[in-house]
C-alpha cells in the first residue's frame, strides 16, 4: 500500500475524513433550502452513495485490492436489488 498517497501514508485517511465531513455538512444544509422533495431525495441518496464508496474504497482499501474482492461485495448488492421491486409490488397490492 506504499505505492500511493505520495510521501505521507496517513494523508489519504485525513483527506477522506475531511471530504466526508464536507459532504455531511452539505447534506445537513440541504434541508434548509426549499427544493422539490424528489430533488432532495436524489441529492441525499447521491451523496450517501459517494460517502459509502469513499469509505469502502479509501478506508477499507477496496480500491487497492484485487478486483475479485470488489466483485463479491458488489454482487451481493445486485442480489439485494432484486428484493426492492418485489417489496414495492407487495406494497402496491396492500389495501389502504
Amino acid at each position, binding site marked *: *500500500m506504499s505505492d500511493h498517497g505520495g510521501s505521507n*501514508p*496517513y494523508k*489519504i*485517511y*485525513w483527506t*477522506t*475524513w475531511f471530504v*466526508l*465531513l464536507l459532504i*455531511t455538512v452539505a*447534506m*445537513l444544509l440541504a*434541508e434548509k433550502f426549499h427544493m422539490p422533495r424528489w430533488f432532495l*431525495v436524489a441529492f*441525499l*441518496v447521491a*451523496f*450517501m452513495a459517494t*460517502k*459509502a464508496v469513499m*469509505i*469502502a474504497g*479509501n*478506508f*477499507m482499501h477496496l480500491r487497492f*485490492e*484485487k478486483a*475479485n*474482492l470488489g466483485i*463479491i*461485495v458488489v454482487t*451481493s*448488492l445486485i*442480489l*439485494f436489488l432484486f*428484493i*426492492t421491486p418485489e*417489496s414495492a409490488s*407487495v*406494497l402496491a397490492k*396492500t389495501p*389502504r
Partner: protein
Amino acid sequence: MTDAHAATLEAHWGGGAAPFGATWQKTMMWIFIVTDGLLFSGLLCGYAFLRMASPMPWPKQSEVFSIPFIALMTFILITSSAFMGSAVTAARLGDRKKTLLNLALTIVGGAAFLGCQAIEWSHLIHEGARLTGNPWGAPQFGQAFFLLTGFHGSHVFSGLVILAITYVRSLMGKTPAQGVEIAGLYWHFVDLVWVFIFTLFYLL
C-alpha cells in the same frame, strides 16, 4: 471458452492460488462484512416498507431528534474511523507507539458514540417512544428506530470489544499488522452502515 481463458481460470481458481489476493483471514472478514451488509440492507428495506405502507403520517425527524446532536454522533464516528485508518497504516509501518495511540483514540471515539446513543435512547424513551408506539405519529416509527439504531449500536459495541482485544494484544506485541487491519475493516464497516442509517432514517 477459449483455451487461454480456461488456463487463466485454472491458474486462479484451480487451487493453490489466492484468487482474492488476500489471506484467508482477510477474505473471511470481507465475506462476513458482505453478509452483515445484507442484514442491514434487509433492515433498511423493512424500514422503507413500513414507512411507505404506514397509513399514518411518518413523524418529522427534525421534531423528534436533535439533528445537531445526530450530526455530532456522525462526526465522532467518522473521526474514529480516520484514527482507525491511521492505526492500520502505523501497524503496517511497524510503528507500535503510533498504532497504540491511534487505536486508543479510535476506542475513545467509539465509546463516545455509544454514550451519545445511550443519551438519545433514554431521552426518547422518557418522551414515550416504545417499540409499539410513540407520541409523534406512525407507531412503526419506534420499531424502526429501536431496531435500526439498536442493531447498529450493538455492532459498535462488538467493534469496541474487538478493538480493545486488538489494543491489549498489540501492547503485548502479539497482533501482527494484518490483525489491526482486519479489526479496522470491521470498524470501517460499522461507520459505513451509519452513513446509510444517518441518511435514510434521520435525514430523508
